[in-house]
């Protein structure tokens, strides 16, 4: 018998060892939970809202938003002025601004960070944000070409990098006039430039920490002088811990371990205290923050709870103060949960925050004349696209299919997202008008309610492509099939694919109708309307129209904001009443949970950007 106990003893011992490795989690004033994981803390590499929320807590840019109405406030830039034509900008940097290691934030920090964004090596999704800057796009293309034709060699890679630096400083209109003055020379006016400067990819990073320079204490003291790190000569490549030049490809290779506690130097309200992969991330107040604490959280814990039910339970149990997103499939359960128990109900119900966001759910029409397999594409004709839009009862979809009562959309820009911009209404639900559109394209209903051409040919079967990752898309696709079959007498085949296969089809134009979703990035209609420019990298529909391109280009150079918004609205009206490259369904509603009797300072604006340093605890009144 005694020998039989040995396996048990071994099990217990192993368990004891494993448990002793684990460090207990620290408490924090504010606990935020998300179903999403944190992908990166490198602002130039960011694409996701969840990551950006952390970027806004860690870093501070030239400007920031007032998150009530998304007007611009000064941040690191104390003041700025621009030339009459809006092409030359000067920003005056707050001399008090400091990095978390005590060194000053200078104009050089922005020059270097933006050069980083503009290097093809960084592979930033948002490189093109800076393309309106003089010489920037040419610089990007030049480096990309040089890298493509790179033949190898350590020496050659370093020489190319030196030439790249030189070229950037000589040709790109981003310059530090002195330590605290940044000059931006644009090639074409960007009316929303100040809004863009607050956006995560344009936040500054601290070069010595990103590249992993070995900085001695004496060096650090020197770097506290007015020029920051800029007076130092960068160490040789071999002595930079987190960056290297690949002798094979010539590209900069970043070791992302710079963005870890201890090495990440930031200039925002918070500093990174701990980060455990897909588990939790802890922020503590940055002692060098320019803003007074003023009741904001001292420590913030951001945890990942991937299972939506568990996230909800954790909120109900009071373990989480703010649940940033409740996923589509549980949302209805959530609304039902309100009728659960009496005591819980009031807190739970008042905690549900459903906010129409800065994003639109839509279905793309393939606008190309043929499909990749050579078949003719019926949606090449605008009449057919208009007919399908007119035959769609969006209100019934948001009432009965999604059940979330989202505001329905007739156009791409969400209502209320951009101050002063009124998106057009687009086409409503009108089955008769839909049939008239089809008739003008040569199609009509026969006695058996089938859509045929005059020569008796059946309308081709329609393939409706959607992603199976969420039941929401499947339900909407099924509802659309029902509506179109009933109103238009067409055959619709649902094609459900997992997201990777879906994106490949989308990219290759291998679809007739495909689901889509787009969130705006900056406070200007172009953040949505750029998708309809010929050749835009995200123009999945293959839509191309000369008059739209010309109208957008004309609006680009319009300096009067009101007139500009009017011409943008006219373009959008044209797009969504005449061309219909896609069928907008509704504004995306984001559901989060926090108790307004506990937290204040939370934004309810569609853009949903939340500065964590703005969150306040409501004082409990006895």
């Amino acid at each position, binding site marked *: *018998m005694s*020998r*039989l106990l*040995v*396996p048990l003893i071994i*099990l*217990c011992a192993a*368990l004891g060892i*494993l*448990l002793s490795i*684990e*460090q207990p*989690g620290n408490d924090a004033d504010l606990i935020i*939970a998300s179903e999403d994981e944190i*992908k*990166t*803390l*490198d602002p130039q*590499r960011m*694409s*996701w809202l969840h990551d950006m929320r952390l970027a806004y807590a860690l870093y501070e840019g030239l400007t920031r938003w007032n998150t009530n109405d998304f007007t611009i406030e000064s941040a690191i830039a104390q003041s700025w002025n621009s030339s009459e034509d809006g092409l030359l900008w000067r920003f005056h940097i707050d001399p008090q601004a400091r990095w978390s290691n005590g060194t000053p934030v200078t104009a050089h920090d922005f020059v270097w960070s933006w050069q980083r964004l503009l290097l*093809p090596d960084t*592979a*930033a*999704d948002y*490189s093109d944000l800076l393309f309106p800057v003089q010489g920037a796009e040419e610089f990007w293309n030049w480096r*990309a070409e040089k890298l*493509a034709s790179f033949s190898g060699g350590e020496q050659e890679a370093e020489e190319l990098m030196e030439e790249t630096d030189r070229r950037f400083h000589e040709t790109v209109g981003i310059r530090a006039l002195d330590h605290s003055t940044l000059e931006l020379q644009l090639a074409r006016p960007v009316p929303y430039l100040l809004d863009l400067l607050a956006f995560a990819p344009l936040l500054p990073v601290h070069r010595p920490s990103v590249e992993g320079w070995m900085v001695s204490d004496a060096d650090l003291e020197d770097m506290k002088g007015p020029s920051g790190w800029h007076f130092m000569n960068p160490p040789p490549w071999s002595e930079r811990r987190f960056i290297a030049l690949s002798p094979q*490809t010539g*590209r900069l290779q970043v070791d*992302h371990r710079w963005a*870890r506690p201890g090495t990440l130097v930031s200039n925002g309200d918070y500093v990174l205290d701990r980060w455990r*992969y*897909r*588990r939790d991330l802890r922020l503590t107040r940055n002692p060098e923050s320019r803003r007074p604490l003023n009741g904001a959280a001292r420590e913030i814990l951001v*945890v*990942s*709870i*991937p*299972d939506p*039910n*568990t*996230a909800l*339970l*954790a909120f109900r*149990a009071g*373990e989480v103060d703010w649940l940033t997103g409740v996923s589509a499939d549980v949302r209805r359960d959530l609304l039902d949960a309100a009728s659960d128990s009496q005591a819980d109900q009031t807190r739970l119900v008042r905690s549900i925050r459903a906010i129409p966001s800065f994003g639109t759910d839509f279905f793309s029409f393939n606008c190309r004349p043929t499909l990749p397999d050579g078949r003719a594409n019926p949606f090449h004709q605008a009449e057919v696209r208009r007919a399908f839009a007119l035959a769609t009862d969006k209100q019934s979809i948001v009432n009965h299919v999604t059940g979330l009562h989202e505001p329905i959309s007739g156009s791409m820009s969400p209502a209320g997202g951009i101050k002063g911009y009124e998106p057009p209404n687009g086409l409503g639900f009108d089955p008769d008008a839909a049939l008239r559109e089809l008739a003008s394209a040569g199609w009509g209903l026969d006695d058996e309610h089938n859509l045929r051409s005059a020569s008796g040919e059946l309308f081709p079967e329609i393939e409706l492509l959607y992603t199976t*990752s969420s039941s929401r898309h499947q339900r909407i696709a099924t509802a659309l099939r029902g509506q179109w079959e009933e109103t238009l007498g067409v055959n619709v085949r649902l094609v459900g694919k*997992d*997201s*990777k*296969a879906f*994106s*490949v089809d989308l*990219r290759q134009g291998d679809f007739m109708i495909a689901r*889509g979703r*787009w*969130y705006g990035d900056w406070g200007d209609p172009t953040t949505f309307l750029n998708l309809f420019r010929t050749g835009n*990298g*995200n123009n999945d529909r293959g839509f191309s129209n000369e008059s739209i391109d010309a109208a957008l280009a004309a609006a680009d150079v319009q300096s009067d904001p009101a007139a500009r918004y009017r011409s943008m609205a006219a373009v959008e009206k044209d797009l969504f009443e005449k061309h219909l490259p896609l069928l907008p369904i509704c504004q995306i509603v984001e559901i989060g949970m926090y108790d307004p009797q506990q937290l204040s300072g939370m934004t309810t604006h569609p853009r949903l950007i939340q500065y964590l340093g703005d969150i306040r605890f409501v004082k409990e009144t006895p």
Partner: protein
Amino acid sequence: MKRVIAMRLVQLPVILLAVYTLTFALAWLIPGNPLERTDGRRPPAAIEEAMRAQWQLDDPWQFYWSYLGDVSGVTWLSRGGEGPVIDFGPSMRHENWSVGEIIAGQLPISMTVGLSAILLAVIIGVTSGTIGGMRPGSWSDLATGLIAVVGVSIPAFVIGTAMLLAGGVWLKWFPVTGWGSWEHIALPALALSLPFAAWIARLTRQGVIEEMQADYVRTARAKGISERAVMTRHVLPNALLPVVSYLGPATAAAMTGSFVIEKVFSIPGLGMHFVDAVLGKDLPMIMGVVLVYSSLLVLLNLAVDVMYAWIDPRITLGSST
């Protein structure tokens, strides 16, 4: 026995190579491009090409050989001993982390859940199996049998969510999320242990019934030894042998197959991320996890075999393999 252990250790690299090749082939065949995303912006085409080239996604053979070099230590040798010996590379979907770091961080957590579950399963299973086996057909036997059936048949996500609701939200005895203390481990370990406990109970009950009818038990009773001593000294040591041999694969299964439990209880273990890696076609992550899991499986089985031979000296290891 030493020879057998040595043989097994020699076999390990061969097994791992086969696993590597098979996993690589299957992972490569997952449709889609790991760098592609469904929603949101896309980087310019030139960047995407460069990224594909950097990840060697255009040529399976190149990826296969260079990655094999990285994980086998060949690259390390050719570099002259710089960097990690076994390099699983960075994760494709989580660029800030290397696969090695992820495994080192998450595997102990999965192991903790798995081992606690097995420990619980042994306690629950052996107790209820013995109770049932001593009086087959009795009420207590039926009751434990019923619990065993329930333990096997209710899916983990149902039982896990129910436990969270009862223990975390209503009774508030346990935290709903988080990790690090025994309170966090209790519920998931219990939820994960149920199917294993049910199986152990069946094995124990079967063993006890068989041994109780054996001649030596009758002899022992005839000698006047107390019923309790008969159980502990004679019946159980023999009845529990099948349980010991089941513990090896069960431990491996509990440590590697707990992804549903991990997701429900939001435990930051490896199982869940492995599933995500497969769905996202994160090649280095898939390969790394599979290789680590397979090594673990082989070593655990070996450990159990050795222990088995040690507990019951009648068994010779050589002939059993």
